[in-house]
């Protein structure tokens, strides 16, 4: 574990190599990337196993000295970090592998791999950071990785806009995190997690300050994890290549927000308000995004809204004090959502479109992708025995136990929606008649299917690390040795919750089958019930438009107003002054008429003036 810092280093090396020599390596770049991430993966597995038996390892060195404060850098391997290291390096490795097939033939192949390396480095760095500052640093770097990869097809206007949007919107969140971090620093005099928790425990920080900083930090998480109201960038981010969506916008980076809240859980749990905020935002986002997902027709966008919704779920879990639930769902979600994206990528690779209206009947043609996609769909829908079932159940239990009946109901409804739209997607894509041009449809090469298979397996089995039946191994391990977290460990919910959840998801699946599978219910059933609602959903509640009209417009307005000030007021004053001086000069010049008597007159009048002033003010006259 003392060498865990090597894990992020491998992808960094990959990035540097590809940056310098990528052009010459061409598609051989893939091997550099794959091998080095494999090294990371192996090492993280080792670290993970080591961590089962050994205590948390922390090391640090002085990074920057500010007067008496020594800001440090270093790394830490605790349970959460080790788990995240594993998840990230695994998904990254799989995506690296997958991309070799998916990106084949792209002229900027090596650039893509370089970016992947950069992102993986940053993400791994993020998860082993022992302090808030370092977290923030890598937090921003993953943002850049994401930005670069979203904008990979830079010549597309949409990609450009999406990349810009992603960066700026997450930056808004980051500023919240930044403020929270800075305030917290002056309260606790440290960025170290351990010091912060100790200070919070010792009551050195006032309650309001805890709430304030926690909420500010949560704003950062909101931005990164695409929570309402900063969610709009995430669906747009689908402009990036699909493997990227799988890696960044499903499995790892977007989960960083959840990870941040999780790793600062002791801080959050010290403030009821903060937790409540997290839960409410999470719950709302879950159902809000799910409802949008109901009507989208772009395969990746559906998955994107699903991601937003699922992240909301995780937040809901954390906010309901379900620490384990949140982390657990983070893990299972990483697997099945990555699977879904890769499968979707495989579909797109096959049919060269992302519009599900142009797909259909692909089950027979994509013999491997189809079942894998189905596994993913079942897992996310919370069908029993798959990983999603267990983690979702854990969340529902946490919400119920946490005493948030409203949130519990929200979660249930969201689960229903999820099941519905995911199966809507599945049926639209794989069953029924082929609607688009599907002449050249073929299964993806094995380099692409191999990662999917692994993820498929994980999507099925990952849930068994923490089940009510075979033991809550994960939950126990995560909170092991940490009293603050122990209180928020595994929630043993009532059995009816599990049954209710199962019923709800099955209902959703059934409804989807009725409409899109069997087609016994008109597709317009929903839209028919209210054109308005449909339009609203289709337009994602007009949030983007709202932002355009308010924030963007206001910013532009301020800018133009300031430009007015700049050109007229600032420059105007300057012009006024120079004009005055010039005018004075011109007047003086005009006085110089060439009339010698004027000159004499001016001189004498000057003298007379002085004399009169002197006579009046001199004070020597009796």
């Amino acid at each position: 574990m003392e060498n865990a810092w090597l894990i992020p280093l491998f992808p960094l090396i990959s990035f540097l190599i590809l940056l310098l020599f990528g052009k010459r390596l061409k598609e051989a770049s893939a091997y550099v990337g794959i091998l080095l991430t494999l090294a990371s993966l192996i090492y993280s597995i080792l670290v993970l196993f080591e961590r089962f038996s050994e205590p948390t390892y922390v090391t640090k060195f002085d990074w920057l000295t500010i007067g008496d404060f020594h800001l440090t850098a270093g790394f830490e391997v605790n349970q959460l970090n080790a788990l995240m290291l594993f998840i990230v390096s695994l998904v990254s490795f799989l995506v690296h592998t997958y991309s070799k097939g998916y990106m084949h033939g792209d002229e900027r192949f090596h650039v893509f791999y370089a970016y992947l390396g950069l992102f993986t480095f940053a993400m791994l760095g993020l998860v082993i950071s022992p302090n808030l500052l370092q977290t923030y640093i890598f937090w921003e770097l993953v943002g850049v990785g994401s930005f670069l990869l979203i904008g990979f097809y830079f010549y597309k206007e949409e990609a450009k806009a999406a990349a810009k949007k992603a960066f700026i919107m997450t930056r808004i969140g980051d500023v919240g995190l930044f403020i929270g971090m800075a305030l917290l620093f002056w309260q606790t005099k440290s960025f170290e997690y351990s010091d912060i928790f100790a200070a919070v425990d010792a009551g050195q920080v006032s309650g309001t300050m805890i709430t304030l900083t926690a909420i500010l930090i949560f704003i950062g998480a909101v931005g990164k994890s695409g929570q309402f109201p900063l969610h709009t960038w995430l669906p747009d981010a689908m402009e990036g290549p699909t493997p990227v969506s799988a890696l960044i916008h499903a499995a790892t980076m977007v989960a960083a927000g959840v990870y941040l809240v999780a790793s600062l859980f002791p801080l959050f749990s010290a403030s009821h308000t903060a937790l409540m905020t997290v839960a409410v935002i999470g719950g709302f986002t879950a159902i809000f995004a799910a409802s949008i997902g109901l009507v989208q027709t772009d395969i990746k966008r559906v998955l994107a809204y699903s991601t937003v919704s699922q992240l909301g779920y995780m937040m809901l879990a954390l906010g309901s004090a379900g620490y384990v639930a949140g982390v657990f769902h983070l893990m299972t979600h990483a697997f099945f959502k990555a699977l879904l994206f890769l499968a979707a990528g495989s579909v797109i690779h096959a049919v060269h479109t992302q519009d599900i209206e142009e797909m259909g009947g692909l089950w027979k043609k994509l013999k491997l992708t189809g079942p894998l996609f189905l596994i993913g769909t079942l897992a996310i829908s919370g069908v029993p025995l798959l990983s999603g079932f267990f983690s979702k159940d854990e969340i529902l239990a946490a919400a119920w136990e946490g005493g948030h009946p409203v949130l519990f109901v929200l979660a249930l409804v969201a689960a229903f929606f999820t099941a519905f739209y995911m199966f809507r997607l599945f049926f639209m894509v794989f069953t029924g008649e082929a609607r688009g041009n599907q002449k050249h449809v073929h299964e993806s090469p094995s380099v692409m299917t191999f990662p999917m298979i692994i993820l498929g397996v994980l999507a099925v089995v990952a849930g068994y690390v923490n089940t009510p039946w075979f033991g809550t191994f994960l939950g126990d391990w995560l909170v092991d040795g940490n009293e603050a977290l122990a209180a928020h460990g595994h929630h043993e919910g009532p059995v009816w919750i599990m049954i209710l959840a199962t019923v709800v998801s099955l209902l959703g699946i059934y409804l989807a089958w009725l409409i899109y599978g069997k087609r016994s219910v008109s597709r317009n059933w929903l839209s028919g019930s209210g054109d308005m609602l449909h339009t609203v959903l289709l337009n994602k509640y007009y949030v983007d438009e709202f932002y355009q009209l308010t924030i963007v417009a206001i910013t532009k307005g301020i800018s133009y107003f300031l430009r007015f000030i700049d050109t007229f007021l600032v420059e105007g004053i300057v012009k006024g002054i120079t004009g005055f001086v010039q005018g004075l000069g011109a007047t003086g010049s005009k006085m110089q008429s060439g009339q010698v008597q004027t000159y004499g007159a001016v001189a004498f009048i000057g003298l007379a003036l002085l004399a009169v002033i002197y006579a009046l003010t001199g004070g020597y006259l009796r």
Partner: protein
Amino acid sequence: MSSVPASAFLALALILFCIGLYGALTKRNTVIVLISIELMLNAVNINLVTFSKYGMAPSITGQIFALFAISVAAAEAAVGLAILIALYRTKKTVNIDEMDTMKN
């Protein structure tokens, strides 16, 4: 002692000085302007001579000063007139307000 107070002489000098000044700054003919300046210097001389008799410490110095002033005034008048003649040769005018070829 004397029936005429010093201030009367000084006032006379002041009046003549002002007349000279007004003439110098308003008259159009340059010769008159030069003469007006002479009048101003004359006014000064009255002052000097007055002070040499009625001053704080009467002395002959005032008269000497006046003599010097007279000689200087004569020199100045001569040079001024010479310049005027030179100017007249090129411009054919002695009107002072027509001397305005140089201005901004």
